[in-house]
Structures are given as structure tokens and as C-alpha cells.
């Protein structure tokens, strides 16, 4: 048998053997068998000397080509097996990616205070500075300075909590108006959030303690139109860009003219539904132009400045936004509910 046909046979056999390799060891074995130091092809190469010098070069080239081919086939197969082995290792590490992830616990802010802060943010954006006032207030700041007549019903023991002679748990955030104006000259533009107290019997829409936010803007020529504009922006920011507002005349001792602000119903958009009692409107807050008597009490020149004030119940807004129908739900501190809002 001549060298060429022997080489061709080895090539065939090696290629076949490589294909059946299952492991790196198999590959190494094939390598040793054919192109190792005592491999069949290596041995064949050593016989090259026996070939006639005329053919030696050509035969040598052929044998080397076959050796290279086997080498690269081996390398290829080795790589295939290595990849398969790695994949196998990874496959063994397979996890159930549908299991829930480790819980990252993040708490929730209380819905009332969350809304309160949203409202503060809106008004800060409109140039109002947010400050606070005490909950234990003087009767003077809570009532007298706000133009409540001495016999006004809300001064009564039945309606307000008293904690000492001349001291009351503030029934609204409005006394903060008095404090702010007494402590600084106009222009004044503040909002005052805080807890207030009234002697109401708790029911689905009343609590003895609740949060309000008060707004006050005093400057030259502040008008009812400015109030309406400010509250229009507030309504859009808090309730959405489509929200429409309605101003209705109302009565408060410390504002004149006074108004109540309605927003277009959040559920029906104005068509009429159960929430808005078919009216299409939801009452949101009370407001008006600061009464000159209030300016007199705080020592402002009521001929030189005008101003507007508004006060809104935060729970009411939270209830509207979160669809809560009973105000007491907010203060049961039930984590199931708080964490769901």
C-alpha cells in the first residue's frame, strides 16, 4: 500500500473518530492515536524517506495537510465539547425564575399627609411659602381677630375644645393668617398646613380632629380674579388638567366677598352621578377676600392692601382622590388599607 492511500485511510478514520468523541479525554485519545508522537500519521510521516525523491515533496505536503486538517478538526471538536460542558455546569445551576423575588420592604406615607404635601408643593410652586402655627391657639387669634362676633356659634363649648382661659384647640388653620400678618409686613404669600379640632360627633364625614391647609396672599390690588386664577391652577394640578372650577358665593366671617370652590366631578366629569349627587360639582374649599376687619386686627392698612385667603380640608381631598367614602377609614391605621393606598 502506498503512503498516499494509507494517509487517506488515516484521515477518514480520524475524522470519523473525532465525530464520535464525547469528552475531552476522547479527543486527547484520538489525538494520540493519529497525530501523537507515536500516532499513525506521525509514523507515516517518518516513512517519507522511503518515498522517491521526485515525489517526496508532494507526498510530504499532502501528509502535512492531512495532519493540519486532523488538528483543526480536533480543536473544533474540543471546543464543542468544552462549550457543552460549560453549558451543562450552568444548566445544573438553573433556578425557578418565576419564584417571587426577595421582598424589599418600603413603607407608605399616610394618605392624608401625602395629599397635604402634594398640595403644599403646588402652592410652593405658585410662590407661597409653607409655614406652621400652633394647635393650641388663643381665642383671640382663632375667633376675634378673624372677625367672629362674640356670640358666634362656633365659639361655643358645643363646637370648640377649650384648654384654658382664652385658649382653644384651633378650629381651623386660619388663625395662622393672623400670626403671619402680625409678624411681617405685606406682601405676604403663605400656606399653613396643620391639625385642627372641632367638637363634632364622628361620622362618615366628620372627625374631632382633622387636617386643613390655609392659604393667604396679601399685596397691593390682589383681587377675587387672582384668587380664582390661583385656585384654578391648584385644581388642575391636584385633580388633573381637565378639571373645571366653579365659584359660588358663600359666607365666612373673615372674608368678604366669600366663596366656595367646586370642582367638576372626578367621577362623571360634570354629567351627574352619585358622588356629586347628580350636580356635576364637588365642593372642595372655602375662600374669599380678607375682611378689612381682619386687617385692622393685625395692624395692616386696609386701605392700602387687599388679600385673599382660602382653607381646605385635606381629608376631603384625600377621600375624593382615593375614593374613600368614610373619613374614619383614614385614621383606623389599618396597615392593609394604608399599604394599599
Amino acid at each position, binding site marked *: 500500500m502506498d503512503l498516499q492511500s494509507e494517509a487517506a485511510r488515516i484521515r477518514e478514520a480520524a475524522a470519523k473518530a473525532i465525530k464520535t468523541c464525547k469528552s475531552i479525554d476522547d479527543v486527547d485519545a484520538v489525538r494520540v492515536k493519529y497525530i501523537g508522537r507515536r500516532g499513525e500519521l506521525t509514523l507515516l510521516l517518518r516513512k517519507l524517506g522511503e518515498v522517491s525523491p521526485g515525489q517526496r515533496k508532494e507526498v510530504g505536503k499532502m501528509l502535512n495537510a492531512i495532519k493540519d486538517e486532523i488538528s483543526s478538526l480536533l480543536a473544533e471538536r474540543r471546543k464543542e465539547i468544552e462549550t457543552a460542558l460549560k453549558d451543562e455546569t450552568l444548566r445544573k445551576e438553573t433556578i425557578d425564575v418565576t*419564584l*417571587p423575588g*426577595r*421582598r424589599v*420592604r*418600603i*413603607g*407608605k*406615607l*399616610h394618605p392624608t*399627609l401625602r395629599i397635604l404635601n402634594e398640595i403644599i408643593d403646588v*402652592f*410652593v*410652586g*405658585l*410662590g*407661597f*411659602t*409653607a409655614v406652621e402655627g*400652633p*394647635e*393650641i391657639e388663643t381665642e383671640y387669634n382663632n375667633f376675634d381677630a378673624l372677625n367672629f362676633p362674640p*356670640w358666634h*356659634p362656633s365659639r*361655643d363649648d*358645643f363646637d370648640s375644645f*377649650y*384648654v*384654658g*382661659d382664652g385658649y382653644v384647640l384651633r378650629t381651623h388653620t386660619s388663625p395662622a393668617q393672623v400670626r403671619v400678618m402680625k409678624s411681617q409686613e405685606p406682601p405676604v404669600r403663605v400656606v399653613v*398646613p396643620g*391639625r385642627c379640632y372641632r*367638637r363634632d360627633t364622628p361620622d362618615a364625614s366628620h372627625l*374631632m*380632629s382633622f387636617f386643613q391647609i390655609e392659604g393667604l396672599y396679601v399685596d397691593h*390690588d390682589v383681587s*377675587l*380674579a*387672582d384668587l*380664582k*386664577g390661583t*385656585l384654578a*391652577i391648584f385644581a388642575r394640578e391636584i385633580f388633573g388638567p381637565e378639571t373645571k*372650577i366653579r*365659584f*359660588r*358665593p*358663600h*359666607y365666612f366671617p373673615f372674608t*368678604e*366677598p366669600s*366663596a*366656595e370652590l367646586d370642582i367638576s366631578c372626578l367621577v362623571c366629569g360634570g354629567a351627574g352621578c352619585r358622588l356629586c349627587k347628580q*350636580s356635576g360639582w364637588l365642593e372642595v374649599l372655602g375662600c374669599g*377676600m380678607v375682611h*378689612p376687619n381682619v386687617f385692622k386686627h393685625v395692624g395692616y392698612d386696609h386701605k392700602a392692601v387687599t388679600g385673599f385667603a382660602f382653607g381646605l380640608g385635606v381629608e376631603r381631598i384625600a377621600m375624593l382622590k382615593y375614593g374613600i367614602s368614610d373619613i374614619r377609614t383614614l385614621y383606623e*391605621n389599618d*396597615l*392593609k388599607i*394604608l399599604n394599599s393606598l
Partner: protein
Amino acid sequence: MRIPFGWLQNFVKLDISPQEACEQLIMLGFSDAEVIPNEWDCLDNFVVGRATKVESHPGDDHLKIVDVNLGYTTLKSVCGAPNVVTGGAYAVALPGAKLGSGQTVSRAEISGVVSECVLCSGWEAWLDDSRDSLLELDKDLVPGTRLIEALGLDEPVIEVEVTPNRGDCLGLVGIARELAAVFGKELIIPEPAPKYGSKRIEDLVDVEIHDEDACPRYGAMVLEKVSVRPSRATLRAQLRLAGLRAVNNVVDAANLVMFETGHPLHAFDLDKIEEAHVIVRRAAEGEKIVGIDGAQYSLGPEDLVIADPSKPIAIAGVIGGENSEVTSTTRRILIEGAFFKKSVIWRMSKRLAIDSEAAYRFARGVDIEAIPYVLAQAAELIQDETSCDVCRGRIDVYPGQRPPRYVTARPKRINRLLGTAIPDQEICDYLERLGFGVSPGRDLEVAVPTRRGDVESEVDIAEEVARLYGYDRIRAAEERACSAHGKVSSSLATQSRLRTLLAGMGLTEVVTDSMVSPEVLNLFGMLPSQAVDIRNPVGVGASVLRTGLVPGIVEVLVKNEHRGEESIAVFEIGKIYDRNNANFCEKYRVGLGLSGLNEPRIWCCNARQFDFFDLKGMVEALLRQFGLEAAFVPGGPEFLHLGRKALLRGIEGNELGFVGEILPDLCGRYGSRRRLYVAELEFEPFLESISVISKVSERPKYPGVKRDIAVIVSKTVLDSDVRRIILEEGGDLVESLETFDVYEGKPVPENHKSLAYAIVFRDRSRTLKEVEVDEIQKRIEKRINEELKGTLRKE
């Protein structure tokens, strides 16, 4: 206030629907104006019937058999009422009708006679409380007419809320005036014209006012030969529309006039007034009177009464006295039309808890100048109803007649206040339509009608103008709203930051009551003498202001435990209160609470119970975030577990709060089966630190030396004792110090523990040598040895 829409048209002719009227009323300031749902479905099967034949019942003397003509047919009715007569017209309930008494009408045999329909009393016909006699209808009514039509009940009724400043709108005329003004319509005021008899009132009664401040005007008229009986059916139906209760023809007539004019009137039985002498005076201390409601009231000097020379006969403006009540035997009456001071009436009605229609109106203000008019109106109506004699003249004690009130209003100023440009002429027009007198000029002199006590100054005039111009026509001027720069106070900013951090740590924010029960505070030993008591609490459950947040937090923990919550982590930022004599103090605190599992049970983690160090870790994280330094010292309030509580001390030794576990006994009282961990921190330090900005520190250039040290000390030695020594000896060279292991048990001797520390020493200005650190370590070892009787553990 109820507004029967048809009745309203007696005073102003409107060409709008009731719904449109409601919308207009809302925009005039009458909130919640709405057409109330039809109340008369109950009268569906009631018609007018005429008694064409009345016979006695053969089997029962008390009963009669009546043939009732209904126009299209005649039915038989067995009837026990005393006032059924041939030719009379009555309300008939047909089979299927439900009576006011609750029964349903059906053909029935009564003592052997078949009754096919029921002749009704006022009660049975859903009209009022009268049960003893049949409701007598106008004999001219066509039999078969539907009862609601016959009684004039078939008109829509609007209900509105009237704000307390608008007493003038607590009568139909007042509402009519508003609508007339807004639509530019004529207001129709009927002219009363009672037919006077010959007797003169001055010869019959005397009136004296002892307190002119509380009662500046008292008017009265006298009617004689009155026959008091139930009112006609249509009058009773009118009262029903007005939402008032029928009594008798005199009282009903007076009430109707009140409903129309808004001015309450009271009728006395003149023969029960001693010497026919009326005195308006303050009550004596302890003076008593029985009201027409049958209740006895004990009065005092702050109360105002109408009296005769020997006794009070009415509580002024609030309720009449039983002793002078108009009854069926009354022949002569005195009608009172007076003006009482709002505040006096309001206080009496509140104190005596009497919520009468009269008190409601007097407390909101009536028109002092309308008294002659309303008296004449009442006299005329009572005369119509009872055919009585009206005595000539009128008592009118009005000592301090007031001049008309004027307010100066500047149109320019009004427009500036409203942000409008309403022409002067239009402003005048609006005011005149509302009944204000206007003398034009650059500044308007506006004469305010006496009924409008609420209008006192230019801004009040501005509101009147705005109402008629339309609040909805005022522009929403947004440009000025966006012209300034606002900010948040540091207290609010600090609260926000704390809340964000705490929520980020997994705690849920709660809001608990600030008014709490003293008993609960006592449980926690938190009821100091300087707690703020509420003088007029609603029950003891909320009669003192809280002095700490822990009781509220504990309640939240336990309530949620009972609701089945496995893992609870909450916080609250809220105020606590105290007083120093007359000085009240309120300040924020931060409260935290943990109970149950440290995380919800989940496949991948072994949940464990929350413990002290979970909470302490959170507190430390908060302090770190705010750059606050504090030491945790064993100790704390009594309501905490004696071995598991720590006080926080700031660098100056000031107390910053506490962390600990609630005493098991206390948990037991709340019905908790868990260990509850709470912390309460002062807010002030956070507030102060929020403005402190720390500067960036340079990256270290020189290598540090790491050492792990383990010490064996007695169990009673504190970690902080060891750390203190390490820090003191290491000084500025200690870059970081962590306690990384705590171990008890073999090979550590009994009653001892091993504490292990990882320390990094570094000098920021040069390379620290190992030998220097060895030196420090030796000193540490020595002091631990001497001061703590401890040893360094050799590896």
C-alpha cells in the same frame, strides 16, 4: 329652607324651571339648592269624595255608613268620625292606598257592612298629626279630583341652605327678592288690609320693655271673638309644603306669615295674661316656665322672657309658655311681633336646647322695620281664617328708632377688589334691584335696608355686586399666581425628609389621635401634672392632649396584630403637648414601632421576630442620615422592659429619645401576644441638623492598618465600655470600628462573653507603622485588663 315653587311665584313671576331656579340660587350663594324628590307618591290612591248620604250603622252606634260620591261612581264607607255630614267633602282613600297610619285600604266588612273605601283624617291622608276628625275639604271641589291637586300639593319644592348671615332669606319673600333682582323682575309684596273693629288696643293691653338692648322693639295686635279650631285643609297642606306642623287656625296663620316674611310671630291667649300687662324682661335666677312642648325650663338672668306681672308667659323668641297657649277655648288673642337681639336668642336656644323655627330666625336676624307689616299680615290672615274682630291700632314700643344706615362704596375700588370692570351704572342697578338705596356720584352713598344687617361696609357691597354680576363671570387671573418664588419652612422640610427616610426603611406612616384618655397615659406613667386637659371633652376617651407618641403607636401595633398582620412596622411624626401654668408648649416627636416578623414569610428567607436591634438599627440609620451623633445608654421610661431599653444621649448629654421593648405586663393588658418595640425621638435635633452641610473628605493617601481584636469580659460589661477604651486609646487614628462578633459559650468561661472588633487605624498624613499600632493595642489591652477585668483573646 323649603321653597314651594308655585307659592314662590306669588312674590315673583318666574319664567324658568325649578331646576334652573336652583342653579341660579346656587350661584347667588344658596348652597345645595335642589328640587326635592316628589313626596306625594303616597297620595296616589287618594281622591276627593262627597258624602251624599250618611246613615247610622245598624250594629254599632259609634259608626256611620256613608255613601261617597267620587264622580264616576259611588262607594260605601263605614266611618267612625264625629264630623261626617251629608254634603261634606272629604279625602277618600281607595282600595290599594296606604294610609298614614300604616294600614292598606281594602274592601272590608265592618260589623256586617261592607266598607269599600276610607274617609281620612289628616293623619291618614299623610298631612299632619290630626287623628280625631276627618279632614274637611272645600265643598266646591269636584268629586273624583286627585287629593294632591285638591290640596295644592302638586308643586315642586326646592330646598336650599341659607348661610347664617342671611336671616332675611329665611322667608319666601327674601328668596323671591334675590331671584327678582337677578332676573330684573318685579317683587310682588301683598298689602295686608285687615278689617278693623271699633275697639282700640290701647284700652286693652299694656307693654313694657325692661331690657331695650335685648328687645329694642315690641309690637302687638289684639284679636277678639276668635274661634280656634283646626285649620282648613288647604292651609294645612300649605304648612306641610313649608315643612311646618299644623296646630290650630291661629298658630297656623301666624306660622304661615313667618314662613312668607321670615319674621316669627307669637300668639298669646290674652285672657291668660294677668292684667293684660306684658313685660319684656330678664328672667330671675331659677325662674321656671313650662313650654308649649310640655317641658319645664329653668331660667337665669341671661335669659329673656315675656311676662305678665306675676309670671313668665314665654321664653322670648324661643318658645311660648303653656300657661298662655292658644287653645280651643281661647277667645281673645294677642299677637306679638318683636325684635330680639340675635346673640341673646342664640345663647338661650343653645343653652336650653330648644331648636324652634322662631329661635332659628331670630338668631340669624329679622327686619326690625317690618314689624308693623308682619303684624297686619298676620291679623288679616287670622281674620280670614277665624272671622275674628281686629282691634284698632297697634302696640309699638320702639324706644330707640335708628336712622337708616349708609355705606360708602367706590365702584373703582369694588372693581379692583373683584378684578372686574363693571360699569358704575351697572353697579347701581344691581344694588337697587336688591333694595338698596343708591345716591350716585363718584362714590356711592348706599342706604342699607334694615333687613340686611350683614351689610356693613364696602366689601359687603362688593359681594352683593359680585353675586348679581355672577361669580362665574369673574375671570380666573393666573398670571399673578406664577410670579413669585415660594419655599418650605425648615420644620416642614425636616418632616418631609424624615418621612421619606422612614418609609424607605419599610415603615408605614400612621396618624393617631392627639386627644387621648388620661387612663391610657396613666398606664404608661405619662400623665404629668402639666398635661393639657380639655375643659369640655367629648367623653373621657379623649380628654387630655397626648404627652408622648408611644401609647398611640402601641395601640396601632396591637390593633394590627389582632387584624392578623404578621409583620408590623410603623412610624408617626406628631405633636406632643404640655403646659407650664398658662404657657402651652407643643412640639413634634418621631415615634417608631415594630412587632411580629421582621419580614413577611417568603420562600427564600427565614423570617424571624423583630428585635431590639432592628429598631435600634433604624434609629441609628436616621441619625446617620442627619449627621447626628448619639450614645445609647441603658435605661429609659418605666413602661419599657428593664433589661431592654436605652436612652439616646446627644454629645452634649442632652436626651434625644429612647428605644426599647414594651413591658410584657403592658402588652398583656393590650391583649398582645408579641414583643413590641418602640422608639420615640425628639424632633428638634433633626431640625437643627438639616441645614448642616458636611464637606467632602479627601481620599486617603496612606495605607491603613487593619486589626481584629477579641476580648473576653464579664457578661455585665457593655460593648460601649470596650469601644470607649478603644476610641480613647486610638484617638484620631481610629478610622473605623465595628463590633463584628458577640459570643458566649465554650471555650469562653461561664458568665463571660467574647466581643470581637474590627478596627482600621490610619494616619491621614503619613504611613502608620505596625509597631505604633502594636503599641496602641497594648495600651488598649492594659486598660481592658485593669478597668474591665477583661483579657484579649489570642487566636
